[in-house]
């Protein structure tokens, strides 16, 4: 077997079978399509590529997609921290049910959350009507997009923060308290720095998720070119017009950004670990 050369010996059987199946599956399902995308984008003339990727409409969609995603992730940073903190540190009736509910946006089909959010935040919806009274229109504006993206990113933020907050050793806070620190000081100097890597990871995850989100956004966004049109929608429109090259160009831009984000998460992880876990001696 050729596999023997590059793997370390083991008494366990099944490497050839599982490795073969895994690589075949991944090649067919991931590598082949990726190659098609690269070739499709690469076959474009450079100026065509730039024209598609930097068109006014594309730039408008980037602004909305990345801007709203950033806002949503920031919102989640604040509320996600409060929710995670509440769930880990406090005891209150219904805590377990709330904890289980956090995963809802993850399990719920995006189309469902899309139409449901739209009807809740529409001008005549349960919440939308009160906001409309203050002249705030949520549905069919960038605010609506942000709300939908916040919902999508929320479980990622909370689930990343929960273990991190639980891991802040009680002893550390106790120690700080016996040394004379007030609670706010303990929070600022001990809790926050310990949870910081998790916050950054959660932020990045929520952001990455939001940038690519499609289903829950298209219902609540107005889908007006330049104003409320997200980048994934622009790709779909290119595809529907059978402009595969244009779609591939936009898609490769988004893919590159996704890779950068993934890389960032890994860097944050290793940074956080290097900082806190024993390495010397």
């Amino acid at each position: 077997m050729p596999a023997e050369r590059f793997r370390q010996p083991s008494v366990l059987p099944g490497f050839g079978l599982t490795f073969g199946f895994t690589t075949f599956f991944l090649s067919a399902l991931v590598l082949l399509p990726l190659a098609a995308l690269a070739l499709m984008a690469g076959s474009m003339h450079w100026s065509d590529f730039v024209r598609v990727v930097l068109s006014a409409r594309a730039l408008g969609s980037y602004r909305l997609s990345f801007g709203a995603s950033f806002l949503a992730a920031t919102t989640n940073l604040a509320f996600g921290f409060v929710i995670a903190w509440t769930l880990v540190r406090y005891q209150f009736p219904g805590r377990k049910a709330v904890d289980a509910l956090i995963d809802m946006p993850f399990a719920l089909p995006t189309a469902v959350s899309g139409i449901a959010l739209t009807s809740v935040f529409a001008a005549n919806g349960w919440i939308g009507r009160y906001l409309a009274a203050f002249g705030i229109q949520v549905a069919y504006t960038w605010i609506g997009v942000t709300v939908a993206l916040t919902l999508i990113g929320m479980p990622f933020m909370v689930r990343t923060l929960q273990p991190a907050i639980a891991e802040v050793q009680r002893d550390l806070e106790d120690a700080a308290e016996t040394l004379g620190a007030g609670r706010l000081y303990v929070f600022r100097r001990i809790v926050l720095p310990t949870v910081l890597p998790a916050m950054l990871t959660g932020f990045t995850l929520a952001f990455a998720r939001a940038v690519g989100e499609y289903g829950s956004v298209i219902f609540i966004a107005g889908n007006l070119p330049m104003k409320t049109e997200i980048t994934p929608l622009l790709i779909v429109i290119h595809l529907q017009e059978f402009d595969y090259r244009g779609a591939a160009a936009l898609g490769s831009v988004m893919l590159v950004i996704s890779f950068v984000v993934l890389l960032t998460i890994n860097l944050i992880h290793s940074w956080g670990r290097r900082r806190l876990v024993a390495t010397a001696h």
Partner: protein
Amino acid sequence: MALGVRLAAREELATRPGRDTLLTVGLRWLLIAVSLAFLAALLLAPLATVFVTAFSHGLGAYLDTFDDPDTRSAIRLTLVSAAVVVPLNTLFGLAASWCIAKFEFRGKSFLLTLIDLPLAVSPVISGMLFVLLFGLQGWFGHWLQDHNISIIFALPGIIIAEMFVTFPYVARELIPLMQQLGNDEEEAAITMGAGAWMTFFRVTLPKVRWGLIYGVILCNARAMGEFGAVSVVSGHIRGLTDTMPLHIEILYNEYNFVGAFAVASLLTLLAVLTLVIKTSVERTGYKRR
């Protein structure tokens, strides 16, 4: 044990001198209230609105939705595609986790990155990849047309797109679990003369069964509910290539809100069921990392 320790710590904290000042108690309830309000607005209200709208014209109107042949075909298509996708992805998850968790080889982290990829990529791009491959102007477009095989805008396309989007779930659940549990028991079984399959079915599978269930239900929920990728490859042909989420979009855009939310209510129930299974799996002591 761990829970007991946490409880003791909470109890100790509660009695700590200078702890329960008006300010801290107020802050505690404020934070709880903020959390609950946030979740109520963003989660509970939409969930409730699904059912309220679905039943807004009474039970009859709700049930009428499911008499519609297009709706029925959407449900059937969703179930059929999930019935193909979930077992295949389970098989892949088991193979990939065995290969990655049990062996050390070069290129392992590359495989892991490929497995993580669909989670990081927009579903629209996922769908687009297959359009580029099998679409009319795609790599295999002409060849497929010549042989009269349709993948895009047909069932195979939907299945492939769902597979791409959901294959990481089982593997992502099993790999860390198998790594954490280690190889000792398998190696013991092998040295006692057990065969490969026996080792797998009698030793490994029982150890990871909760993680497997967890991964499979997540995979199923995401497959049935996938919208973006399927939307790109399906072509939205009523009664032929629309799955439930796509059908919701069609009904919604026709201003048939009762119909849209009635179909949505089914998928919501599926999500609730998924969460219930997930919670009960966690109650067995299985902990997700």
